[in-house]
């Protein structure tokens, strides 16, 4: 339901938030709708909408601020991400919940970027905006903004991989590279040695991430132990693999890294690829 606000003010400055730092909620990896509704009521969470600005302006989760994914990816550097967080009025340690309407992949990429610069109290909303609305939870159309806050940068190197890291991992028995793209794209070409776990495997059934039991079983079936480090990548900017990152974290895999520049960069660097050429599998697709 939409709030009945008929205020003519185009944007509201929200200052009524709880500022008692000792009361700050430590979010789980994935935030459920009950918890988020509760935190919104208490004014003690920053909700980040990563859809396009037009979509946000039309309607968004109550109290959400707008951060289109494209804006984050524009520079995609730690200092820019800090700038973004500060402008959204997010101080160190303040709970942040991110959502999208694209099965969680865009939100996951943004949430990961926050984590990367050290904002560990970031969670992914368990559902999409569309589902939130269907459930009859609170939305509004008035854009919200908050006063600027200071944020520090404390890079979390443990969750990041670049091309050279991936290359080194190819020969490491305790590291596994996972390609999050769909099967046919993977078969066509992929990073040598990478295993395929399409994003369609981690999501589904009304929730952006399947229950941990299922994902644990998928990992177990592949003979991957929970101590193995997993590096996820996808086609271009780390959205699909961002979702994989969260799914694996949620399922209890301790060390997960995102190769955020993904296969697009890998190819542009002219690194070797593995291809399956002996079958015309694309002709099986009814697309």
């Amino acid at each position, binding site marked *: 339901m939409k709030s009945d606000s008929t205020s003519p003010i185009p944007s509201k400055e929200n200052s009524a938030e709880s500022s008692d730092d000792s009361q700050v909620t430590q979010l789980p990896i994935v935030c459920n709708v009950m918890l988020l509704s509760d935190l919104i009521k208490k004014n003690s969470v920053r909700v980040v909408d990563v859809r396009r600005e037009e979509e946000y302006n039309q309607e968004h989760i109550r109290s959400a601020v707008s951060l289109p994914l494209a804006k984050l990816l524009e520079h995609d550097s730690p200092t820019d991400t800090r700038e973004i967080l500060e402008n959204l009025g997010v101080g160190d340690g303040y709970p942040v919940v991110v959502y999208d309407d694209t099965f969680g992949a865009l939100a996951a990429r943004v949430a990961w970027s926050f984590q990367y610069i050290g904002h560990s109290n970031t969670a992914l909303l368990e559902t999409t905006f569309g589902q939130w609305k269907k459930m009859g939870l609170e939305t509004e159309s008035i854009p919200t903004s908050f006063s600027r806050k200071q944020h520090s940068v404390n890079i979390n190197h443990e969750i990041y991989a670049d091309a050279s890291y991936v290359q080194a991992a190819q020969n490491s028995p305790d590291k596994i590279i996972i390609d999050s793209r769909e099967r046919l794209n993977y078969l066509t070409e992929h990073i040598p040695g990478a295993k395929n776990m399409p994003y369609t495997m981690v999501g589904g059934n009304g929730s952006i991430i399947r229950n941990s039991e299922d994902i644990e079983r998928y990992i177990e079936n592949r003979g991957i132990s929970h101590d193995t480090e997993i590096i996820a990548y996808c086609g271009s900017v780390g959205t699909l693999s961002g979702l994989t990152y969260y799914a694996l974290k949620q399922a209890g895999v301790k060390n997960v890294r995102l190769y955020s520049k993904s296969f697009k960069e890998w190819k542009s660097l002219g690194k070797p690829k593995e291809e399956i050429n002996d*079958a015309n599998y694309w002709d*099986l697709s*009814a697309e």
Partner: protein
Amino acid sequence: MTDLNVEATVNSDSGLTRSSTKQDPMWGKIEESENFAKNVKHFRQKKLADDDFRRYRLQHGAYGSRLQPNYSMVRIKVPGGLIYPDQLEKIASLSEAFSIGSAHISTRQNIQLHWVQLEDVSEVIRGLAEVGLTTREACGNTVRNVMCSHLAGVCPNEKFDSTPYAKAIARFFLRNPMCQNLPRKFKINCACCEDHGLARIADIGLIPSIIDGRRGFRVYLGGGLGAASFVGHLLEDFTPESRLLATCMATIRLFDRHGNRENMARNRMRYLVQELGWEKFQKLVLKERSIVEMTTSTKTAGLFDIGAEQEESLSPRALDIKTVKLPIIEEQVLPDGAPYQRWLHGNVIAQKQPGYFTTFITLAAGDITANQLRILAGAIRNLSEEASARNTPHQNLAIRYVTAANLPQLYSKLASIGLANPGALTISSAVGCSGTTSCNLAITNSHRLAKEIEYRFLELGLDTDDSLRDTTIKISGCPNSCGQHEIATIGFFGGASRVGATMAPTYTMLFGGDSGEFSVLAKPIMRVPAKRVIDTIRRIIELYKEERSFGGSLKEWIDKIVRGEGIGKVKDIEGMKKLLSAITQLPPADQEPEMYRDYGNDIKFSAKTARGECAA
């Protein structure tokens, strides 16, 4: 022994209650998923030998993908071809999560998920078991999916609905110890009448028959298509239904005992029949049947319970006949006419139940996306009064019990998801096995060729030409006949032709095949370059059209030529070959390099194959 999922389904649109309708047996078992996962691990840890694992994997429906043993084609058995909306929805989800986002309907009424990672096969089995489906014994040396004519129950010519019999047979033999390690695969097909179904190209084929008010079958044995094909032999004039189980058991026992376990190329039952001679084999079966009847315990016989499979007969409300007239099904349509009229003409037939229609969904070479499956499931639930569908050996889906009033709604639903192509029952709906898209044995991309034919022929409006309607085109990517090319009016099987040092993809074209009780195996005519197949078929149609004095259909014209009874310009096969020699000639590689590339490839053709997965 069998869990039955008894569920009341109310079709709110019509007020028709299916409360007494039994769902199919729950064919799948969750523990088989767990065991499969365990065995994959053991195989990876080298605790299971390659060949042992291969046999196990095939027994559970996982067929190795083309030259990539880490991937599988997962074959989902659909006994009798009967499938429910929740099952289609589950297959949609499984194809998205673990396969390529599309599913494939095979020529034996299975549904196949391709390029599944071996480690995920157990998850597919698990998901299928949740909706009652199984992959068990879909491959390997077992009794494969029991087929049943998709028209069984609605066919105007049938003596009775054979569906419950097909399902009873499937239920009796699934996981039955007597058929876990046969010399080779074993196929059972049930027809509805003498015209429809594939009874004579199976190890056991059944055609319903009634004598003196008693139900029974004409049982055909020892048929089958492959590198060497045979049509089945009639066992006796009439086999009463009470002897059906014993007849099937006796045949399987004989095959198990006498079948060739050495030479894989000649170990289907049809070779045993050929070696022994039909009369001897027939005697052995009849004798074995007496032994089976004398020694089978009442308890075992009781497991073969047709009643358990017998769906309460659907008794739809009497329909107002005035509302059911669909003249367009009978009348001529034009390619530029209204798409809906064209679809009605080529995709809809009247059932024996007045006022009800069976509609056919045109699927290009049997492929359908996950999203299409989901929407289709909804349409089946709402618009078919039996709330289920049948998949057909023509790689299409049949939605039955649609009222005339619901046809426009069904059409627009299909159109909204790109499934309203016309021509399902016409020459344009070509059959193509999976070919080089996933099969180890394939030489050519028969799958894509079938799609190209369908697109081109629809574009040309050939589906609206009624003189071509009963002509069928079926294509296999190798001589093994999964595409059933030998029962096509115009069939093709893939091969390679060498010109100097260069290889070109070519097809052997066959003429004059037919299915049903009067099945005829097609005769090989000549080789055609892969990229000339479409032009060659069009040339044949032109030649037929030039024969103005001939009043019959293209199929009848071709049949006459095969028999050497052609009138006019083309008298016989030799005459036909002469007229087609120019178009089928392989030009030198430097003149037409395109002829040396198969569909789906921009590189030069090479014939690569590996060990087949069709035998365990």
